[in-house]
């Protein structure tokens, strides 16, 4: 029992937290009904998040109820956009497709990410490093490359259908990627790294005592997982499932790229078309987002009710703990196999397709005869363009800054919300709202804000950073929130009793114990911001171009090989950066958790 939370507690007890342990005052303060510093903190956070979120929300609502003029200003009042939402073709079919798509893709991400996270964090499974590499590399891979790679692999001329034709039936195409199944598979693969990172921080910070007790009382491994591990992670799992589900319902990249050619309509198909028109029908897109906003709000309220009892699940208590890996025994090789399969599907296959594209003079099927035409000219083109270096630097700066700001905000907001402090519900609602913004709607709102602000941030990295912070706050919040859920509030109560103020207990207790969650969140946002395309395409000025703008430019103009080469070099670079960061964070985590 030499766990480090004990040390944290002993820090508190030994007075390393400011001020001697005066008993009467702090105890009184803890039980006092009105806690002024806390209210001040809540208010400050609400104001900050409100300033970030409400202006675009206001634009969204205004646009959804007004006619859009040719100069993209809004005028008058109309319900047309909402009427169009309801009278759109095949509403019933697309709604059923949407729910089926979102549910199955969420389940797939949860199963892949969840199993992997549990194996890595709670067991003595082999090949753990491989699971992290899989996650980081696949998160760092730009969407267009990832989705295009899967479209290629599963496509009619892709290796799977090709092999089937070669060996079994030369006339048939057994798998049609442009289907609901194709959409579910690709979307499920895309978001499994999010689940993995989120759950791995949850599992890492979970107390192993109960699992051990169950095992000692004779429970089988499966029973232990079912009755203890999953139950303990339930609030986190539920929040995560809800989050991924919302993300999938409003996703339109995969439904458009994968489903549209096969005429699979989901609710967002029309949304995608509306923003590609000229001028974009932003009224329609906004109305859709407003409806999503209301649905998300309702789901969050529901979730709030369920998780009120979440204290029961917190397993990091004042007692020292050290989660020990679960001995799988003979199951180890199965675990290793699972990790290997995940690596093959989520990473090796799409990356090999990208590598193939980058080495071919033009797009062509994977055949032995094509190997003769292998070329490195795409790599030469990338290396001989020094201008990519500047873009890479811009991208690194803006992504790292975004991740840092978001996780700092999320630390405080997540703590206030998870602890049901004053204003908790409002904070959670506000910070989650940007989740439903289509990139273009947020982009247009920010164009306008950037152009009208008295400080000249238009066309600079600052504006892109601001847009990124708004867009990725919801993700950071989920990481911090589920992290705080794990920590029993008795630790903070003890700190408070010992005379610590809020700042001290956040800095010395909550912060360090949240390091796994904050690290995972930072990494996720850093990687996902670096590949974001829709916002920089609209907001980047001549001196604030990012690497994703360059990739889109090349991709949209048929430089598929060069995009693949640039993409692979970029992913390699991002993986190195992320690994260094991860090592450092892991070391920090070591001092808090001792493992």
């Amino acid at each position, binding site marked *: 029992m030499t766990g480090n939370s004990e040390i944290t507690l002993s820090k508190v007890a030994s007075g390393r937290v400011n001020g001697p342990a005066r008993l009467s005052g702090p105890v009184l303060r803890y039980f006092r009904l009105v806690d002024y510093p806390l209210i001040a903190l809540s208010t400050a956070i609400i104001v900050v998040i409100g300033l970030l979120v409400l202006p675009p929300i206001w634009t969204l609502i205004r646009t959804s109820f007004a006619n859009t*003029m*040719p*100069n*993209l*200003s809004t005028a008058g009042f109309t319900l047309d956009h909402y009427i169009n939402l309801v009278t759109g073709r095949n509403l019933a079919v697309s709604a059923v497709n949407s729910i089926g798509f979102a549910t199955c893709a969420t389940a797939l991400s949860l199963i892949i990410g969840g199993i992997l996270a549990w194996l890595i964090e709670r067991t003595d499974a082999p090949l753990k490093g491989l699971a992290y590499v899989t996650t980081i590399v696949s998160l760092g891979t730009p969407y267009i490359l990832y989705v295009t790679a899967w479209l*290629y692999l599963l*496509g*009619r*001329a892709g290796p799977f259908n090709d092999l089937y034709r070669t060996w079994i039936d030369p006339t048939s195409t057994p798998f049609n990627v*442009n289907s609901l199944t194709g959409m579910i598979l690709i979307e499920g693969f895309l978001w499994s790294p999010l689940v993995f990172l989120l759950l791995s921080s949850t599992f890492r910070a979970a107390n192993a005592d109960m699992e051990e007790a169950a095992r000692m009382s004779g429970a089988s491994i499966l029973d232990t997982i079912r009755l203890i591990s999953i139950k303990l992670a339930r609030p986190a799992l539920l929040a995560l499932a809800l989050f991924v589900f919302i993300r999938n319902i409003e996703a339109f990249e995969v439904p*458009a*790229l994968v489903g*549209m*050619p*096969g*005429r699979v309509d989901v609710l967002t198909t029309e949304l*995608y*078309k509306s*923003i*590609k*028109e*000229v*001028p*974009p029908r932003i009224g329609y897109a906004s109305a859709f987002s407003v409806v999503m906003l209301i649905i998300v709000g309702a789901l969050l309220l529901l979730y709030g009710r369920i998780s009120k009892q979440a204290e029961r699940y917190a397993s990091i208590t004042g007692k020292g703990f050290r989660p020990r890996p679960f001995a799988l025994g003979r199951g180890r090789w199965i675990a290793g196999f699972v990790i290997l399969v995940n690596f093959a599907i989520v990473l090796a296959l799409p990356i090999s397709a990208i590598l193939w594209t980058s080495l071919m*003079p*033009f*797009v*062509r*099927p994977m055949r032995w005869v094509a190997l003769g*035409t292998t070329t490195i000219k795409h790599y030469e*083109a990338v290396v001989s*363009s020094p*201008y990519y270096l500047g873009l890479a630097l811009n991208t690194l700066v803006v992504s790292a800054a975004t991740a840092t700001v978001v996780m700092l905000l999320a630390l405080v907001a997540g703590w206030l919300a998870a602890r049901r402090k004053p204003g908790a519900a409002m904070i959670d609602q506000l910070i989650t709202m940007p989740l439903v913004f289509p990139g273009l709607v947020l982009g*247009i709102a920010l*164009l*306008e804000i950037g*152009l*009208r602000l008295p400080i000249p941030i*238009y*066309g600079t990295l600052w504006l892109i950073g601001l847009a990124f912070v708004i867009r990725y706050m919801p993700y950071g919040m989920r990481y911090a929130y589920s992290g705080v859920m794990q920590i029993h509030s008795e630790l903070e109560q003890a700190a408070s009793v010992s005379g610590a103020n809020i700042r001290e207990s956040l800095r010395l207790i909550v912060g360090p114990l949240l390091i796994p969650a904050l690290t995972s969140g930072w990494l996720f946002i850093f990687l996902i911001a670096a590949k974001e395309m829709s916002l920089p*395409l*609209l907001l*980047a*000025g*001549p*001196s604030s*171009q990012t690497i994703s*703008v*360059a990739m889109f*430019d*090349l*991709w*949209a*103009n*048929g*430089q*598929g090989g*060069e995009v693949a080469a640039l993409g692979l070099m970029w992913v390699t670079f991002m993986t190195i950066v992320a690994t260094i960061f991860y090592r450092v964070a892991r070391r920090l985590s070591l001092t808090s958790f001792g493992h």
Partner: protein
Amino acid sequence: MRFPQALLRAATAAVVVTTAIPPTSGQTIDSSLIEAAKKEGEVVWYTTLVVTQIVRPLVQAFEKKYPGIKVSYTAAPFQEVATRIVNEGRAANVKGDLFDGGATFYPINAAGFAAPYKPAAAAAYPAEFKDPNGFWTANIVQVVSPAINTDLVPANDAPRALNDLLDPKWRGRMAWTDAPSAGGPPGFIGAILLTLGKEKGMEFLTKLAEQRIANIPSNQRVVLDQNIGGQYPLVLCIYNYHAAISASQGAPVQWLKVLPILTFGTVGMVKNGPHPNATKLFIEFMLSEEGQKIHAEAGYIPAHPNVPAKSPELKPEIGKYEYKLVSPEMYNANSAEWTSIYKKLFQ
């Protein structure tokens, strides 16, 4: 339709003009324009062109020719370019000077943020390639056509006429972009209606819709790549110069002279842009023979009548093929009708 008389006349006129004045168009530029441009020192170009292929070579050549004038650029699809310029104009905080792209001009103009300029360098251009009021001038020609994957489609199976597209063997094996432009399905529908007339045209389109053409939510180039990659043996509405570039690298692709549609990209000035003189100078450079040769070298079809394409037969006058003109302006005037047919029949 045969090669239009106006174009022919313009082409012959161009020969006369270029023999009358010295061929280096740089000499025709007013030195006061150059001075004023140098004072401004910068042009901000919002472009839809490919940075590595054409934007950077153009910028480098211009900056070398006119030291002291920097060209800053931002690349994005035409929808984003238009949205950005319109927002800047509405906020009365204009940063961009210059834009390009086929359909970019119309939303900008509808919002009142385009400015006229008649480039001297375009004097020899055919009338169809210039706005009479100077609001836009063509910089590149785009010929939109079908293409086949030659590995999958033997030469004698390739469609030769429009009706061949209705052959049941193509059912479910064709694709095109979903681009809302003259080079996309609405432009194709327009060309059909203009060629066959309303009634016969609609009859043809209704039959074509039964072929279930896949709508690829991306541009012409990506669709062509799916053709080359073997996903769809026959694709419609691709740019013939893309097919030529790929074929020259060994890709199994051939563009077809089945209702080739001629359209073009344009350049235009932003109203109240911060650097009007440098912008004019840059437009002059882009449209001059010197600038147009850079376009040709990058694989585009130059709009300048005296500058041949890298593969000269891509231009109708040299490749000797009939085409249908669907200019961005014709598209803009009819897009509501053509788009609604597209949505009704093909989506």
